[in-house]
Every structure is written in C-alpha cells, then in structure tokens.
C-alpha cells in the first residue's frame, strides 16, 4: 500500500525518477554573517566592509550555509507529510553524500530553489531492516544558474520483514 505521507513510506514505496521542487530561500546578510562567524570565519563571509574590496567584491555565503539550508528546506517539506508516523521516521537518515560541488557564490538577497530526484535504489539490506535511497539534489539561483549539486544516500525501512 502506498502512503501519501512522504516520511511514512517504506523503501518499496519510493520510486526511482520521483522529482520534487521542495523549497526556496532568500539569504540575508545577517544569516550569512552569523553562520560564518561560527563555522567558516573568513572576512568574505563575516565582514561586509572588507568583503567589498576582496575577491568576490561583496559578501558571499559559506558553502556550508547553502548546504545546511538544503537540509532545512527538506525537513520543512517532509515533516508536513510526517503525520501519523509514531515510531520515528521510516526514511530520511543520511548515511553519505557524494560529488558535492558549489558552483557559484551566493550573496545577500539571492534566492535559491532546491530540487531532488530519486536516482537509484541499490540492492542492499543494512542491519536487517533498512534499504538505501539515492537522490540527486540541486540548488538554482534566481538567474536559473545551478549553484550546488550533490548526491545523498538515505536509509529507508524495508517493508518485507520476517
């Protein structure tokens, strides 16, 4: 039986080829600076005055802020559909990512739109219970340029259990 709730779905319910545009976010100068002060302290991301005369002629976001926001948008999207799941989630815990590239700088006021597509379901059983779902994830800015891409493997519980 296929569930409408994304996080309620078993491994077997999640189809290769499924594609979602799952969220957008406009980055503010404040959140770029606050993130960088803690995680990526360099003047290009922490000090608008210094950044103005530096390499990118203005403040740019830490690449990891762009990627962390991917997670936030994904959670917001999926948790809407998580009602009815009382035993934790049947899918979603990340195991590994591959081929993460940051292709363009993200500046204050830029709006990114995040997408994912299920691209593979490797034939593996992990700890007797879980399958792996592989998706391609991308972020595009307001000009339509791709600024980030990566693949991620997440765990999804298999329905067929002894």
């Amino acid at each position, binding site marked *: 039986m296929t569930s409408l709730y994304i996080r309620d779905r078993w491994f077997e319910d999640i189809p290769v080829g499924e594609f979602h545009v799952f969220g957008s976010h406009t980055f503010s100068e404040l959140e770029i600076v606050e993130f960088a002060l803690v995680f990526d302290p360099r003047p290009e991301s922490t000090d608008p005055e210094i950044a103005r005369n530096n390499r990118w002629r203005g403040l740019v976001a830490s690449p*990891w802020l762009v990627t962390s926001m991917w997670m936030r948008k994904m959670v917001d999207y999926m948790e809407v559909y998580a009602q009815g799941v009382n035993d934790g989630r049947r899918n979603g815990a990340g195991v590994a*990512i591959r081929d993460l590239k*940051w292709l363009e700088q993200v500046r204050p006021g830029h709006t990114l739109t995040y997408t994912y597509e299920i691209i593979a379901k490797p034939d593996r059983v992990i700890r007797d219970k879980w399958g792996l779902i592989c998706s391609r994830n991308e972020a595009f800015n307001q000009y339509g340029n791709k600024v980030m891409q990566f693949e991620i493997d997440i765990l999804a519980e298999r329905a067929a259990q002894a």
Partner: protein
Amino acid sequence: MATSTEPDSYLTSTSIALDSGSIARFAAQFDPQPYHLDREAAANSIFGGLCASGWHIAALATRLTVETLLKHGIAYVTMTSVGELKWTRPSFVDEQIGVRLTLGERAGDSPIPDTDRLDLLVDVHNGEGDIVATMTASAAVTRDPTAEEVAP
C-alpha cells in the same frame, strides 16, 4: 604546478565541545527533527539518543579545517567540493569534535581564479577514539609563495 605540501602529512586540530545548546541551536535553524531536538524522541529513534545533525558535524569540521590550515600557513579561501562525506556514527552531547587532516595533491586547476586546488582528507573524531565522519574535500588556497610552506 609544483606541489610543496608533502602527501600523507597529518595536521591535527584543536577540538570543540558539542554542548547541548549548540546541538539545539543548529538543529532549530537547519535540521529540526526530533532526534536532534527532543531527548525522549531521540531515545526511541534510529540514533538511540540526542545527537547532532550530520550537517552540524560537517560545518564544525570545516571550521576546524580552516583554523588548522591557517595555523600552518596555508591560505584557505573556500571549500569548493566534497568527493564523499560519510557519517559513520552519531555524535552525542558533550563529545569533543576534532579533525585530523591529510594533505593531498596541490594543483593549479582550482575553479576559483588565482588559487590552487588543495585536496584534503578530513577525519572527524569525537575525542573518545571514534571516527564520526570522514570527508574528502577540495579547497581553494591562495597561490602565494609565502603561504606554501607547511610546518612539519
């Protein structure tokens, strides 16, 4: 482009305590799922206890990597790509997150103009002998002769 960093030399970072406040702050902003926010829900989850977001660990590893590179005179500009990032175990409250860096190839084909590409292997540990994540990454570093000397 000549390389001046010796392959297989290790650099060791300081560590950052993963206190419950920092786990909650990151999770509230970027990864608001029960196993990062709520002790009881976390105890019954796949992770078995309240633990940090994997993206929090990646960001902390980046902070420690940047500090360590700069301390050794390598002029980090930005991270440009990650070949693979694997989370090998959850990171729980009060673990001491640190990194061990293995410097790899340095070459002239960085996507950022006027920088070199420096490949890095980042082993993230928790202060108790466990590796919590491993990451292969490429950073852009300033192409400056005075920045190319690495302390032994």
